């Protein structure tokens, strides 16, 4: 198994789509599609996420890896497949910001890990609160790049919780990486240091909510 993970990770980091697809196909001869996702794709993406945090892998590799995995998982585990993860209603959004790359990476990695979630694009506070309540979202992932946007998460958390929504909110993005107390200051339930950590967080919450 570890051999597959290492080979798959190497294929992703060098943008070797064909090699990555071949490893997935080999793994499928021994595992179900969801096992391939859980035991090969997700661990490889987790390792790449951790390597980005320590400066050993670059954002461009994280982004392209997520995209390749999203495409591969789409083939082996289409959105309609009953093996797709049964998860709380989830959504991802960029708050009050126009920097979409972080959200795109997390969205790809969530989907590559077998999750389905709403992509809200970019929203301001009022729009987001209204939409999250209307959609009965249980897990909300908020991405920002700018400090003023990060501080606006506080309003989102306060208003959703005041409305009695049983919602968990995770945040991510540069301001939270540069100030490790900021996520608590804005009232989030957790922060993801990288995209793979967002996946782990949602998996943990999914188990708690089951």
């Amino acid at each position, binding site marked *: 198994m570890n051999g597959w993970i290492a080979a798959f990770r190497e294929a992703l980091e060098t943008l070797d789509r064909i090699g990555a697809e071949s490893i997935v196909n080999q793994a499928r001869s021994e595992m179900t599609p969801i096992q391939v996702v859980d035991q090969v794709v997700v661990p490889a993406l987790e390792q790449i996420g951790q390597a980005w945090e320590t*400066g050993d892998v*670059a*954002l461009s590799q994280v982004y392209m890896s997520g995209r390749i995995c999203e495409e591969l998982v789409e083939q082996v585990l289409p959105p309609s497949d009953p093996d797709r993860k049964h998860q709380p209603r989830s959504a991802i959004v960029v708050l009050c*910001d*126009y920097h*979409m790359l972080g959200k795109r990476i997390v969205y790809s990695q969530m989907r590559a890990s077998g999750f389905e979630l709403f992509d809200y694009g970019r929203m301001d506070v009022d729009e987001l609160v209204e939409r999250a309540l209307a959609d009965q979202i249980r897990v909300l992932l908020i991405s920002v790049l*700018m400090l003023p946007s990060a501080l606006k998460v506080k309003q989102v958390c306060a208003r959703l919780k005041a409305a009695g929504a049983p919602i968990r909110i995770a945040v991510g993005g540069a301001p939270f990486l*540069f*100030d490790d107390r*900021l996520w608590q200051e804005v009232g989030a339930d957790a922060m993801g240091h990288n995209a793979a950590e967002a996946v782990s967080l949602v998996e943990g919450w999914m188990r708690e909510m089951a």
Partner: protein
Amino acid sequence: MMAMNSMQRTLTTLGQQEPDRVPLFLLTTGHGAKEVGLSIEAYFSRAENVIEGQLRLLKKYRADCLYGFYYASIEVEAWGGNTLFGTDGPPQCGAPIINDTQIDTLEAPAIDGAPGLRRVLDTLRGLKQRVGDSVPIIGVAISPFSLPVMQMGFDRYIELIYEQPGRFERLMQANIEFCVNWSNAQLAAGATAICYFDPVSSTTTIPRALYLETGHAVARRCLPRIKGATATHLASGRGLPIIGDIADTGTAIVGVSALEDLAQLKAAANKRVSLLGNLNGIEMRRWTPAQAEAEVKRAIAKAGRGGGFLLGDNHGEIPQLVPDEVLLAIRDAVDRWGRYPLDWIADWQDEGA
């Protein structure tokens, strides 16, 4: 040692010598709007406002430079893009303006055809008129390699770099022309040096091997055509593995990240390039004056000796939300701990600080 003015202090440290004290480069933009009592949008609508704001900030914080920077997307306005103004942060770039196929016919816009760029040039002229050669005036150009993040969106740009080398090269040709013209216009208007913002070259964003083929090659084509000194700024991104490569581009300064150790960066720079940084601008918002002092001491202790170091934030722009008392505490700490020969450092290290 006789007191130096800001220009002498800066040039001495860039020559890898110790000046009278560590130069303080507080790169503030939106704070100027607060000083003159205007909204961000109104402030940046007239050169006179920014001249007045920068001069008031210089007097208040007694930093060693003036900053002619408005906001990053002012360059994209010249290419046909727009800027979105908020109330509590820097203006942001609007929607991307070019797609893959438009790159094939892309031409660099004229500098004098862009009202925003003309305002920046007027600002630099006004500042130069007021301070002459006593204080360095910093102009800004986004690197040709990093500008496409705003021109076409970050995700599509990464895909272009990896998947369409021909179009990538075409885009770089247009952007290099623009960057050279824009930088030289600022130098002619009174800028002392150009801060060449290049976050995409950071190893946070692309691996070193790709940097050498792309951002590095672009800088080597662009920087020699800029008729003045440049400071390459990675805008919070990591740069330790490529600091020697950046020095090879001929730049004088590298703006470095709070995520990396200044002592390691200083050793890697090896007197080939000076360092600017690396106070954490995001955390700075909630620092106490005592924390500000401790951070200033830490930075100076790690990188101050021997010159080649300018104290500043790690992003190239201090968030407007950072309060005055923190910036003034930084200022006071530099006065107290930044005076050469920095002979307090040995004791500080012995204390295990």
